[in-house]
């Protein structure tokens, strides 16, 4: 009975897998248009009615925080962008959003800062006008600046109850010694506390990075291409280009394995985090795509390791691996939340052994196909509303300033062979390339 059932399942699987992908990974027709000042506009009309999602992506993040004492500044500056202009003081900015019934927020990561608003289509012009104003004419006084720095401290405080923030901090500073990826986007607590004293620097920051050549506007939803172009030209073409180029220190090659341990002051489950230095995002070379596939093959919910550690031995309650797309070389990271401190060495051993397998023998083509299928459908499922589409495009924009990135990486997934994965694994999963961070909690 069990056999027959399984056969039925796998046959259905094969039939569906045999169907060739009919369309591109990013299936929407889009318009990509550059203004003379270097601002890029990407418009994606969709069939989802009424709603428009507007993402404004600035290619600045904690990666650009090169000066000492300024960690967390890109994120802090994201907060300052809500502190108003002459034409739209904060109250009027809020009133306008209220009138539009809009959902509005922003986020910052290592490589980007994104401002996003979702609203009804009739409010598109109001939103583009108001956003154009704050990107060009932001103006805030010292008291507002100092007060906002405290809100950032509040953000640090609310995140600090969980050990993950501390793990991120320690992993970053252990794996990177020169490059700015050595600090988190939130920044060091000492720098956050010093933010109220950095008013003059904040003006310089705006002057450097909030420029059209760093910025891409993404408009997705119930819109047409031409009217969007006209509106963006009307409100954004007067924005002046800047001249600043970030010089980001290059991280020298790692020469020996690194490790760090965190004693967490309260009871919690132990963590084992293993990271390998890997190259920057690429969709012209095989590396990024291969590492994505290895993360899924080796550590996702259908991997043999997950079955062993989470389902059978039940030593681990959460297992995740990722190659995180970054502008500069970053990390391939495997995070295990372990149930007992004494199992940490065994879990570490099992993770290392999984990685060794990728270096020793090519993966089965059938398993590779299953992962490819998963990635195809994951992408399709993630594009189910205008806001989600805009958010996906925004991530691609941070890397290569075009949604085409999504198609290129998807095509790369399709082209890779088991031999490619073997070569990539051999290239990066070396002891000298590795950082291990462990965390254990206080005894109960």
């Amino acid at each position: 009975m069990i056999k027959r059932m399984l056969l039925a399942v796998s046959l259905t699987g094969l039939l569906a897998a045999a169907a060739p992908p009919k369309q591109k990974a990013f299936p929407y027709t889009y318009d990509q248009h550059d203004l003379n000042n270097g601002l890029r506009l990407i418009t994606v009309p969709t069939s989802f009615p009424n709603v428009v999602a507007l993402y404004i992506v600035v290619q600045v993040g904690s990666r650009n925080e090169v000066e000492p004492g300024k960690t967390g500044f890109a994120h802090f500056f994201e907060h300052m962008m809500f502190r108003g202009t002459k034409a739209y003081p904060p109250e009027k900015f809020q009133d306008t959003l209220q009138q539009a019934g809009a959902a509005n927020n922003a986020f910052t990561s290592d490589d980007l800062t994104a401002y996003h608003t979702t609203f009804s289509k009739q409010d598109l012009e109001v939103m583009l006008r108001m956003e154009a104003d704050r990107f060009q004419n932001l103006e805030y006084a010292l008291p507002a600046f100092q007060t906002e720095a405290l809100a950032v401290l509040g953000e640090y405080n609310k995140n600090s109850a969980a050990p993950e923030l501390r793990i991120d901090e320690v992993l970053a500073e252990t794996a990177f010694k020169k490059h700015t990826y050595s600090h988190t986007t939130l920044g060091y607590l000492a720098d956050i506390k010093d933010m109220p004293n950095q008013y003059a620097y904040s003006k310089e920051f705006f002057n450097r990075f909030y420029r059209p050549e760093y910025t891409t506007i993404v408009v997705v939803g119930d819109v047409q291409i031409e009217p969007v172009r006209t509106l963006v030209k009307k409100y954004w073409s007067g924005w002046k280009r800047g001249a600043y180029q970030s010089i980001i220190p290059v991280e020298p090659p790692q020469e020996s394995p690194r490790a760090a341990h965190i004693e967490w002051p309260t009871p919690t489950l132990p963590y084992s985090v293993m990271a390998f230095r890997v190259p920057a995002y690429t969709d012209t070379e095989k590396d990024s795509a291969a590492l994505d596939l290895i993360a899924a093959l080796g550590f996702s919910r259908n991997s043999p390791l997950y079955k062993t550690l989470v389902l059978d031995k039940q030593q681990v309650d959460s297992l995740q691996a990722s190659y995180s797309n970054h502008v500069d070389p970053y990390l391939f990271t495997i995070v295990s939340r372990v149930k007992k401190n004494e199992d940490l060495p065994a879990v570490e051993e099992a993770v290392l052994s999984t990685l060794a397998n990728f270096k020793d023998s090519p993966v089965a083509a059938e398993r590779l196909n299953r992962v490819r299928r998963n990635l195809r459908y994951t992408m399709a499922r993630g594009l189910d509303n205008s806001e989600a589409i805009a958010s996906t495009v925004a991530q691609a924009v941070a890397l290569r300033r075009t949604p085409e990135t999504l198609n290129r990486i998807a095509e790369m997934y399709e082209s890779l062979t088991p031999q490619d994965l073997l070569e990539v694994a051999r290239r990066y999963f070396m002891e000298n390339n590795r950082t291990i961070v462990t965390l254990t909690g206080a005894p109960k």
Partner: protein
Amino acid sequence: MKRRLMLILIAAAALLQADPPTFVSLGGASPLVTLRLVVRTGSASDPKGKEGLAALTAAMLAQGGTRQLTYDQVVEALYPMAVQVGYQVDKEMTTFSADTHVDNLEAFYGIFKSMLLDPGWRENDLKRLKDQTINEIRVSLRANNDEELGKEVLYNLLYEAHPYGPLTLGSASTVGSIGLGDLRQFWRTNYTQGNITVGLAGAYPATFPARIRRDLAVLAPGKRATPVRPAPPALHGWNLHIVDKRTRSVAYSIGFPIEVKRGHADYLALLVAQSFLGPHRSSAGVLFQNLREKRGLNYGDYAYIEYFPHGMFQFEPDPNLARVQQIFQLWIRPVEVPTAHFALRLAFHELDRFIQNGLTPAQFEQTRNFVTKNVNLLTKTKRAELGYAIDSLFYGIPNYGRYVVDGLRKLTVDDVNRAIKKHLQMRNVQVVAISPNGEELKTKLLANEPSPMTYTAEKPKELLEEDKQVDSRKLPFKAEKTKLTPADRLFE
């Protein structure tokens, strides 16, 4: 023979009283098919001493394998389709949800059906999921998330000895005591045909709903649950509960039960009131403006008239958390220890002023306009649209968007201000603080000494004047209504 006849008669009588499953079908041309199956049962149906049973039952169905397939085989089968069956349990509802590309609907549905209707009930899965639940309680909630902890402790206190009181996940000891027999029994009794609502959206075949209906016939027949719950225990005066733990700052949750829920005559009036005071994660609310924007006390401050868990991770509420009773709640995100007393005073100062003054006609118009438009954003995905439609059936109201838009059109500023005065008050409140050095905070709050603010930033004169009123505001906590608990004793 007689006995058999009797059994047939009993079965017929049961059938006469039974309800069929309910279907909410949105259809549509999208190749993504969304399936949402909601069972009208939840932790309010947990037997005493087995709190967490509803949640663990759902976990076992969604992550425990079927009789034919072990859980790893289920994962293996679903993996190439990139489908995961999500589940959510609350007091009155249990939800299973998945999206699948229509290419995979057939293969997916075959497995989904077995997960819910022919579960595996294996000891090894139960052991894993009990561990997972206990870790969620002890680690994810209690150790790592001060904000969510404050909210859950607030509900726990306001609903003491009430079916809504225990944590939906249960406590470490009750979860530990649950066995396979308990799960089977809960599933048989509560997963009845009448209790099921199936939501469908996307380009599924026309015959699909009928097929699901046929498959659901293996469940026991039953009447749809229409829960009646006892009134929450009366709240007297000012109650303070400090949870002491080693953490950087102080997180507050403040609230009291209200009689208003969706469908109540004052629901929309309170929805507008909530939105003016502090709509979730919006920077427009009065609380956010006065605590964060003007004074930099923390990261954000919001008001709620319905249960909204996981608010620190998301902007919109999840549907299918419908309850027959709700509370009014203020969420004050973590504040630094030196300003914790002032922040609490300011929160009550704002609430007091809000209750006294209500909204001006202009504020009312603006807020009503916001809510009228913003409601469309809540249902921007098919998942949410189905979820809201199923909640509307629960509350006996029309489509939520229509209900809000039509109702708001008729609403007046007087309706809102009257509803604020009727339902919001500061006589009987519960305050929960998650705090380091709890004893110190307790002493400070009970002593009621002034807590003057100092700012690095220059502040307008009016703000400093207002601070003087706030910093000596009496918060009438009393020692006999104040409790201090170490965090590690909670939900054990």
